[in-house]
């Protein structure tokens, strides 16, 4: 059985102007659909990657998975428990202990006034657990020194801070870790160190990762399965081998072509057309049709549903 089961998940944000402005300008309320009708299943001990550009809703999905945001519709079940619906506090606490998160900005995700020891042990201390020696043990597990426990976050580099974040995420012995752009703020050589650490920990501790990233090379290296998001919807889901060898959705194809390549010396390809549309007013039909070279009349009126296509899932009328 899948560890994480997400069904028809959606999230709408009210991004209206303040009440007084609305009355004076006679403008209606505006809503932003950040995530719409996303269904995914994530197997235990696998890495599921969510990729997309800004406004794709990948971070919003991540925050709903850990319970930081409540879904507007649909459900998130972690091992059969829906955090948003479950009334039994003990079950909620038990599931919470099994989920953790690593954030993008290693400078904002550690409280600058706390010592590293207190930061790392908080998930356990908050439950009244025993924390003696825990921080030291975890620090060594993530490749730092036990004596770093008494320091403050500002004494560390970005890569070291991200290791501290990983140590904190491991404190409550979780099974599922949501990694929201864990290396986008890091330099390439530091990124390699952190990604290797994540791989090692996954093997050693049997972790399940949800990796949220905009960097296709990172995703290709880490993921067992990749979901591509565009304007809040899942447009394609496949294994890395399938996705990178034969992308089926025109958006995925565009994304792969646009990514700068290390061996693309003097490459002169026509850059992609257009920009990401305004998410408060998405195009009708397939959201990608204004930028799609293959779009037909049907793409402009009917929204394509996600179809199974030989192990992959694709939301495109033309894919086969």
């Amino acid at each position: 059985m899948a560890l994480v089961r997400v069904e028809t998940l959606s999230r709408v944000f009210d991004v209206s102007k303040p009440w007084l402005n609305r009355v004076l300008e006679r403008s209606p309320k505006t809503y932003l659909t950040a995530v719409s009708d996303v269904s995914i299943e994530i197997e235990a001990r696998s890495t599921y990657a969510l990729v997309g550009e800004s406004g794709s809703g990948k971070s919003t999905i991540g925050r709903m998975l850990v319970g930081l945001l409540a879904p507007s519709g649909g459900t998130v079940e972690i091992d059969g428990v829906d955090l948003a619906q479950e009334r039994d506090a003990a079950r909620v606490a038990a599931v919470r202990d099994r989920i953790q998160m690593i954030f993008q900005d290693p400078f904002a995700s550690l409280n600058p006034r706390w010592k590293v020891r207190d930061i790392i042990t908080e998930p356990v201390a908050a439950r009244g657990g025993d924390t003696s020696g825990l921080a030291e043990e975890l620090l060594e597990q993530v490749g730092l020194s036990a004596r770093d426990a008494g320091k403050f976050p500002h004494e560390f580099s970005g890569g070291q801070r991200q290791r501290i974040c990983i140590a904190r995420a491991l404190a409550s012995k979780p099974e599922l870790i949501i990694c929201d752009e864990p290396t986008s703020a890091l330099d390439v050589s530091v990124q390699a160190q952190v990604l290797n650490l994540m791989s090692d920990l996954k093997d050693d501790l049997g972790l399940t990762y949800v990796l949220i990233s905009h960097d296709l090379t990172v995703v290709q290296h880490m993921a067992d399965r990749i979901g591509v998001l565009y304007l809040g919807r899942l447009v394609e889901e496949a294994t890395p081998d399938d996705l990178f060898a034969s992308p089926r959705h025109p958006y995925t194809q565009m994304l792969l072509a646009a990514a700068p390549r290390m061996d693309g010396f003097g490459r002169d390809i026509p850059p992609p057309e257009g920009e990401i549309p305004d998410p408060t007013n998405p195009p009708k039909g397939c959201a990608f049709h204004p930028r799609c070279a293959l779009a037909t009349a049907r793409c402009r009126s009917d929204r394509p549903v996600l179809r199974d296509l030989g192990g992959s899932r694709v939301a495109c009328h033309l894919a086969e």
Partner: protein
Amino acid sequence: MADPVLSIRDLTVEIPTRHGILRPVDRVSYDIAQGEILGVVGESGAGKSMAGNAVIGLLTPPAHIAGGEIRLNGQRIDTLGPRALRRLRGKDIGMVFQDPLTSLNPLIRIGDQLTETMLTHLDISRKEAEARAIAALDEVGIPGAARRIDSYPHEFSGGMRQRVVIALALCAEPSLVIADEPTTALDVSVQAQIIALLKRLCRERGTAVMLITHDMGVIAETADRVAVMYAGRLAELGPVRDVLTKPQHPYTHGLMASTPLASRGQARLHQIPGAMPRLDAVPDGCAFHPRCPAAQARCTASPRPVAQDGAAACWFPRIKQEVS
């Protein structure tokens, strides 16, 4: 070959602090020829932006140029006063920064910003400047340029704003453009558009470009030559294909190998141990020696190796190996 547009020789930038003097840029030399794109890469803190800021005279005190010289079209510019530098910045050097909003005045219509810049630096009439402003916006791919000329910067999306900044940087026909992480804040698809635009315009006009970025992929696709920086020093300088596929410096090699692309199909990524030294703790000799797999006794002692065009700052450069 004609004289280079920009020539930097032994440039050193120092910051005096209570813990001693820091050298974020330490004896760096490179040239950029007309119509050439020089990529400057390095990790954060390597001094790549600081070198660019030194060229345009935008170092934040107490940082200052402590040695070496900078020549633009043969004329020394590191000794110029603030007034002359300000003239230089609009006229001879165009600038594109990571955040387009730092280059645009939020309270002035973009058309006025373009015409004002041209009127200050070019000997043309207001009418002609206005016509040229529309042409410039059209050229950078802003749809309906004649209409959008009266818009304010906040009315554009991030990618469109960066296009406006490029139009602004190029409108006074500078001989050099310094682009500091111009696409880092943008999405992949928009990044490809901006890079293609910058490349095309500078090729057409023969503008020299200093492209500062941390993204090796962008460098590979855009630059003609590349300068790799490490701890404020130049590690390697040469044609982009040579440096990226046959890196001579162990740092460049490690950097290339640690990208996920280079390790394709392997469970683990190649990893350079340790981290770049902080500026207050740069080791003696070659700054990379504590992390270098090939370090020998000579690497730990002064004098350190200094890079030249085509020759890495390494006593024992890698010659034959190629990165897969």
